[in-house]
């Protein structure tokens, strides 16, 4: 059973190394196939682990496999260990399964790019890092995976390194993520100092005896990491810019897997969070704020990928809301269904972008329904799942979260209302996108590309994964039907027991409210963008506010970037130029002048040198003789 886990972890690493070492000796297509196969082998390993787990009793479904002791210092030691339990198994299946489909899709999407081999090596490396993150048996190994996925994300956002915006976006993502990494590392330092261990079980047991301040600090540090990785307020500004990377990267890293790592962390470390209820509430509140803010900003975006990116932030907001309220099953369930439908939407957007030769501006699209009927169907399924229309997957998972919010009363009610408002916004921005891209008359650009390529809606390596994801997005939610069965929740129950259990009545009430609000959003989008019976209300202030993404970039620019640059300028003028540059220039000048002075003795006349040697030898002789 643990062999399956190790194969799952190491296969993508092997694929990455094979592509890197083979270099130019293999064709670009072969590199893509190697990467895809290595990820599917990982999926097979995950399936083996999952099957082995499922065959055991619920209480014994956690196996720790330690390869060797990695670090040891005094009484503190950390092993290179993998933990396979129901939570890790779910994440392994999602990461390797959805990851495999997306890498496969990349073979078609990236065909013809100059540096495909590098791309596939990075993709395999990302899958390895993400699997390390979810399989890690202790916090330190988790942090290693955490950092490596950040690196992979940086490398892939900046994949087209000749584009300055891509490089800037990669840098921004990396810096924002490192803020989170740092707070997490601080939390781990506190844990080591207070409990003496970073093993999950030991740390959770040790945390119970700590003072509330300490636990709050640890939980805050973990939350900081989760917020940065999952692009929640206030560390969210990197995610929209990350859309500069290739579209499959957006689908894999910035929708399906990496950005949901924060939710995984909260669920994984839930014993710590449960000891710090204030931080839990903060997490849920941040999730609610993010889902509203991102939903609002998504309304005015014109780039198709950015709309989906904001939608991702918004949906992760739901997951945070659920995980923060203790609805761990609901949060993880939404993570899974979101991986299906959001990867589907990104890959559908990728097909559109591919078809239109790189155009991403929705204002130049329209009427693609006729040219790309199957893509528009897949996109429609993904959109309906995102809005949460039954019986598609998003409906079951989003309502599980909202029902838990309703059931937890008080503070939960406020979040519940925010979540309902978010459901309306989701319907509105999703169908605005759908109608702008696929409905209406074909725009000039679309007509131009109507028959240009001759490969239909895309190569088979792209359309088949999209088809599979369409099916998953449609039926993936049926694992959990309120009042009938709770397969997913029961599976996770031994790892993370939920704090709230909504009653069936609350479930149905939520469903009715959320679905009608989602439909209302779709209806408004229909009126404005498809039927064109209404126009967008004229509100210049609000519009500017949203188009500037609530001024977060400007705020950080004023708060951090400008003071840092100003300070750097000051020190450069006050210290670096006069002191450091000056002293170095002085040393150089002194050496040059001394050299010139000594150099004058070098006349170039051989006999003068000989004479000097002879005279010196004679003087030495006299000295020796006379001293003796």
């Amino acid at each position: 059973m643990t062999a399956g886990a190790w194969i799952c972890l190491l296969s993508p690493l092997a694929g990455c190394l094979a592509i890197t070492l083979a270099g130019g000796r293999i064709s670009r297509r072969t590199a893509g196939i190697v990467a895809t196969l290595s990820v599917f082998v990982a999926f097979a390993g995950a399936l083996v682990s999952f099957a082995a787990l499922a065959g055991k009793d619920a209480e014994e479904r956690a196996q720790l496999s330690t390869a060797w002791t990695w670090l040891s210092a005094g009484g503190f030691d950390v092993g290179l260990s993998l933990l396979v339990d129901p939570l890790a198994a779910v994440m392994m299946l999602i990461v390797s399964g959805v990851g495999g489909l997306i890498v496969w899709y990349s073979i078609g999407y990236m065909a013809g790019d100059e540096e495909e081999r590098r791309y596939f090596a990075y993709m395999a490396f990302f899958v390895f890092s993400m699997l390390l993150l979810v399989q890690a048996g202790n916090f330190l190994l988790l942090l290693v995976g955490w950092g490596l996925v950040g690196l992979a994300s940086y490398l892939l956002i900046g994949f087209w390194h000749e584009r300055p915006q891509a490089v800037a976006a990669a840098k921004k993502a990396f810096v924002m993520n490192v803020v989170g990494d740092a707070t997490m590392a601080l939390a781990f330092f506190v844990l080591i100092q207070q409990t003496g261990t970073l093993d999950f079980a030991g740390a959770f047991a040790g945390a119970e005896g700590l003072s509330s301040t300490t636990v709050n600090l640890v939980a805050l540090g973990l939350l900081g990491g989760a917020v940065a990785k999952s692009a929640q307020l206030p560390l969210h500004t990197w995610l929209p810019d990350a859309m500069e990377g290739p579209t499959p990267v957006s689908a894999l890293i910035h929708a399906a897997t990496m950005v949901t790592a924060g939710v995984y962390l909260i669920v994984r470390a839930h014993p710590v969070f449960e000891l710090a209820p204030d931080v839990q509430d903060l997490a849920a509140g941040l999730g609610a704020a993010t889902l509203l803010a991102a939903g609002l900003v998504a309304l005015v975006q014109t780039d198709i990928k950015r709309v989906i990116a904001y939608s991702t932030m918004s949906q992760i907001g739901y997951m945070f809301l659920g995980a923060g309220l203790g609805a761990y099953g609901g949060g993880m369930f939404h993570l899974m269904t979101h991986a299906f439908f959001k990867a589907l939407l990104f890959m559908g957007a990728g097909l559109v972008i591919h078809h239109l030769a790189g155009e991403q501006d929705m204002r130049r699209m329209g009427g693609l329904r006729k040219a790309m009927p199957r893509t528009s169907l897949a996109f429609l399924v993904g959109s309906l799942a995102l809005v949460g229309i039954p019986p598609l997957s998003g409906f079951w998972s989003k309502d599980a979260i909202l029902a838990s919010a309703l059931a937890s009363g008080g503070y939960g009610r406020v979040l519940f209302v925010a979540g309902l408002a978010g459901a309306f916004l989701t319907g509105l921005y999703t169908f605005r996108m759908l109608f702008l891209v696929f409905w209406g008359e074909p725009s000039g650009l679309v007509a131009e590309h109507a028959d240009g390529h001759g490969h239909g809606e895309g190569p088979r390596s792209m359309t088949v994964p999209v088809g599979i994801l369409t099916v998953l997005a449609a039926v993936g939610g049926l694992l959990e039907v309120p009042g009938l069965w709770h397969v997913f929740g029961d599976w996770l129950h031994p790892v993370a027991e939920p704090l709230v259990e909504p009653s069936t009545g609350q479930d149905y009430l939520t469903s009715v409210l959320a679905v009608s609000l989602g439909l209302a959003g779709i209806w408004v989008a229909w009126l404005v963008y498809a039927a064109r019976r209404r126009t967008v209300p004229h509100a210049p202030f609000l519009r500017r506010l949203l188009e500037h993404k609530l001024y977060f970039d400007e705020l950080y620019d004023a708060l951090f970037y400008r003071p840092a640059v100003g300070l750097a300028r000051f020190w450069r003028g006050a210290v670096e130029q006069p002191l450091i540059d000056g002293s170095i220039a002085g040393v150089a000048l002194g050496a040059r002048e001394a050299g010139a002075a000594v150099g004058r003795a070098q006349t170039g006349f051989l006999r003068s040198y000989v004479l000097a040697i002879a005279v010196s030898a004679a003087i030495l002789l006299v000295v020796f003789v006379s001293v003796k």
Partner: protein
Amino acid sequence: MTGPGISWYVALSGALFGIGALGVLLRRSPLIVLLSLEIMLNAANLTLIAFARHHGGADGQIFALAVMAVAASEVVVGLGLIVAIARGRLELDVDKLNFLKG
């Protein structure tokens, strides 16, 4: 031990060394300078061997052999340089070969 006394050897060696040194100092052809250097080295060799015989030890003689080997190598390099200078159509005059002056 028969033959001249040690002082004769030292005197001859001193004379040879002086001739060599004057040659290095005064001549301008690099070839002659190299020859003069050889004379100086051999003057030193002569002293080494003479004192070795005088003291009845073998180490001075071994040392002289080493000096010969060094001298031979030095001549190889020196002649190579002179040939290279001649090929480069430069004047064979040590006073004019002064590109390395400071």
